[in-house]
């Protein structure tokens, strides 16, 4: 931990200033910003959209999902569009036909109940009335008519979550800002985009269409400046070092908060009504509250994907956590805040596992309906107080590329602000040691490091010190 809280904020702002200088300096066609989990990527996007719009030229913002677009529109409007926000920018939200503005967008579109009227929603660029900032998904941008250049071209482009965008998706939208300057923002440690077919035929090609947008841009433009956000504001001091060591060994970052800034308190187990056999469950929760991590380890066994015991353990941990009325403390909530069901997530690798956990939760009670249960892919970009993770390799006989993927484990272990509990069968280190690396090696493909094997070993070595063995 270096410096005071104020110094860390200043360091983060310095990165934003440096990015702005590179963009406005016109010496580069693009700038890349790598961000570890929860490092203020959205804040950077919102801030830079404002600064670029200050030049008076139009800004296009690309996000990957409609959910992300709506989040950005809301934050942009609140920061730059609302009366008294200083800039008074107009914001356009391009949407597919049949899009119904979500509440957080609708409150910026004018009308009797709206906070402001800075946002316009339309299906075509022409119908937006030339806003300062236009936001849409990559898929929508790809289908908008190519504006006449230079008059209608985009001087500025911001591509959010660019590591989740596929190279062919970028190719479809890049002509819209080809004469301008682009900012690529994303988290290199998250899940890579995927294709439904085997992309081996392009392996090693500098324009492998199944690769990520950032990879292809860097392959062709090796001199683009790359900036890094230095602090994770989400991950607690207990988690940042492990996540950094396992997944970002060459691009170090630190927790933005000091160890004493965060705390999680669990009232004594005896005071809560519940099944009497919850001993190891309570131990795991207590350990997680105290140290930020717990490994709830079930006896070694090869199981089907929807391992009933592991699935049930995930549900019981979540149920117990909510019913013990855990509360969390951080500088924003010095008096503490209860960990309600909606602040808890359970992550898994497969959809059928998530469905099994959901069903198990339902059996534990209706008060757990607000607990998020999802796959790593869908948990990307989200944040919770406590995250319970069904380990991707739990109960498996083999360690396939899918289950070893660093991005998957990284997403699952970096969603929490306070504590993370991993549920797993014993024996994963042995599985990793026994399972040979069988993926073909291709010429011209940059070696990805850390590989899944290394990252998994680093995580398990750490979790080994936080083990709670489940009762048999």
């Amino acid at each position, binding site marked *: 931990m270096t410096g005071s809280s104020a110094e860390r904020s200043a360091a983060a702002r310095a990165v934003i200033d440096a990015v702005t200088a590179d963009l406005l300096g016109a010496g580069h*066609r*693009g700038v890349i910003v790598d961000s570890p989990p929860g490092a203020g990527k959205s804040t950077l996007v919102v801030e830079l959209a404002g600064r670029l719009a200050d030049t008076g030229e139009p800004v296009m913002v690309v996000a990957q999902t409609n959910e992300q677009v709506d989040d950005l529109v809301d934050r942009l409007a609140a920061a730059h569009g609302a009366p008294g926000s200083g800039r008074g920018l107009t914001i356009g939200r391009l949407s597919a036909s049949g899009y119904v503005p979500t509440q957080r967008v609708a409150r910026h579109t004018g009308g009797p109940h709206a906070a402001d009227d800075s946002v316009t929603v339309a299906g075509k660029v022409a119908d937006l009335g030339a806003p300062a900032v236009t936001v849409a998904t990559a*898929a929508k941008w*790809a*289908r908008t008519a190519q504006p006449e250049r230079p008059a209608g071209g985009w001087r500025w482009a911001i591509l959010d979550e660019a590591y989740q965008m596929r*190279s*062919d998706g*970028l*190719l*479809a939208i*890049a*002509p819209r800002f*080809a004469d301008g300057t*682009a900012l690529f923002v994303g988290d290199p440690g998250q899940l890579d985009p995927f*294709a*439904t*077919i*085997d*992309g081996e*035929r*392009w392996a090693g*090609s*500098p*324009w*492998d*269409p*199944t690769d990520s*947008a950032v990879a*292809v*841009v860097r*392959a*062709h*433009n090796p001199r683009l400046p790359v900036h890094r956000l230095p602090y994770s504001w989400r991950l607690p001091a207990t988690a940042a070092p492990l996540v950094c060591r396992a997944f970002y060994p060459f691009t170090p970052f630190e927790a933005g908060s000091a160890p004493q800034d965060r705390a999680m308190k669990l009232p004594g187990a005896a005071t809560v009504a519940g099944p009497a056999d919850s001993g190891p469950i309570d131990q795991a929760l207590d350990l997680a509250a105290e140290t930020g991590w717990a490994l709830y380890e079930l006896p070694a066994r090869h199981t089907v994907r929807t391992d009933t015991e592991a699935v049930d353990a995930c549900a019981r941990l979540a149920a117990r956590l909510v019913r013990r009325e855990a509360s969390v403390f951080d500088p924003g909530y010095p008096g503490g805040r209860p960990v309600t069901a909606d602040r808890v997530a359970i992550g898994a690798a497969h*959809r*059928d596992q*998530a*469905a099994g956990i959901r*069903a198990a939760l*339902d059996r534990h009670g209706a008060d757990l309906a607000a607990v998020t249960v999802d796959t790593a892919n869908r948990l990307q970009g989200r944040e919770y107080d406590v995250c319970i993770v069904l380990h991707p390799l739990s109960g498996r006989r083999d360690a396939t590329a899918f289950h070893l993927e660093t991005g998957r484990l990284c997403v699952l272990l970096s969603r929490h602000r306070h504590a993370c509990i991993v549920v797993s069968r014993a024996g994963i280190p042995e599985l990793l040691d026994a399972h040979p690396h069988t993926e073909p090696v291709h010429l011209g493909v940059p070696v990805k490091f850390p590989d899944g094997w290394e990252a998994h070993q680093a995580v398990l070595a750490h979790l080994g010190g936080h083990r709670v063995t489940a009762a048999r």
Partner: protein
Amino acid sequence: MSALAALARVEAFEAGRAVPLATVRHVHLSARPLVFVPVLMAGEAAAPLAALVGTDRTDPRLLVVDQPRDRDQRFVFLAELARIVLDHVAQCRGETELVEATRNHEQWERHLDAPQLVVPNPGGIEAMRLLGRSARFRSAQGPYPVDPLVPVLGRYLTWFAQDRAPTAGSSVCLALTEVLAAHWATGQSALEDQHLAALLAWIVPDRFGPAGAGLTGPQAAALAEDPDRWPSAGPATDPEFDTGVLSALIAAQQRAEGDADAAHAARRALREALRGRLQPTWDLLWQGLDLLRALPEAGHDEHRWRVDRGRFTDFARAVDEGAPPQPRRESAVAAARRLADLEAAQEAYDKQRALDDPLMLAAYRVTGEAFAGTVVAVDAERRDTSGRTPKPRPRVWLRTADQVVLRQGTKVACPQRPNQRPSIVSVTRQGADCVVELELSNDMGRKAVPDEGSVPEPGESRCYATVLAAEFFPPPPLPDPEQTPWTHGGPPAQYTPAGADHDEDWH
């Protein structure tokens, strides 16, 4: 491997016989396929050694490179192969049909047939790709001239092996072990299934061993391991054959230099040895085709073959018009187009197979992407009155014992009415069962009340799956190759035939 395929393997193991994975044949079989059994020389990437090829099962043509290290002889081999393959192609270019103009395409003529190449295994397709690559950049002029048919053959082999074979649902280039393994599950590993003899041994064990022996699958597969009776189906040869037989025969030819009779005898010995290695695979291949032919044709077979015929028509015309050979590396735009094409083909093939074959649909039920049950209640009169004109929005409740993992709002469809895509409103657990509430929003006619028969009735059995609700949108437009943006390295260089093509060191 899906859970259902794993179960089928267990069942096959217990029964000692292959178990069907499909109720219909999901590939097209041409009336006269060109069967091709290539073998390559060990140690070099694309050095042809021999091939059995032909459309007549009783009369295969044997092509042999007497001295497989002699590069000139390789191209003589390819020229002979070109005559056979291009003749097969030409025979498919007889009659055409008229395709009416559409919004995006003017009227055109489509060939009524397309070529079909069948090789024993995926290695055979890879061999075709390598041979295609070594042939397509060659030229009939210049320092190392080849037969003018060789570069044309190279383009066709590339089209078969690299363009069409990886496209789901295309049947112009088939690897038999893959096709058989997609239709039958055996009790052995996927690796063992790659040996054509062992795979067929599980499907038709009676054909192995003495007549009337009544062998089981594993017994027959054990016999199929005998490399003398059932040699490797290529393209790699058995190392024992290489050292024990092949090297001696090649050396014999060298020793016989100058002695025409001895050289002729040595060449004949080599040909006989290679024919002996290839003939068993040739026979198995035709047996495999017979098995497939006995399966009923899938409902979408004609549709998919029409696509193949159309692609063939386009490609053959492009070759006629002197299009350059397929580049060694696709440009950024071409690669993105190909990816979109391959993904769309895969999605369409998955949907078509699920529609054509209840066994395929069942695999989705196991993963929770489909559910089957009985309609327990219907509100056919329900309407959406929020708009200016009320729209029929019937709701259907279906009780199922399947685990439903689908989310609210997911679109599904059923084989009885594949164009109707209801969305899931809610899933309620009732004991061990689930009750799924669906809202119908399309394919009910244009009237204020749904057309008769367009809404499921109580008591009906239905199976709804997400894969059936897949809709196909044209991929987003990509820039022209000459407009490739800076993010992808700018416009690619134009192809110009260069001397360097001859000098690639892997030749």
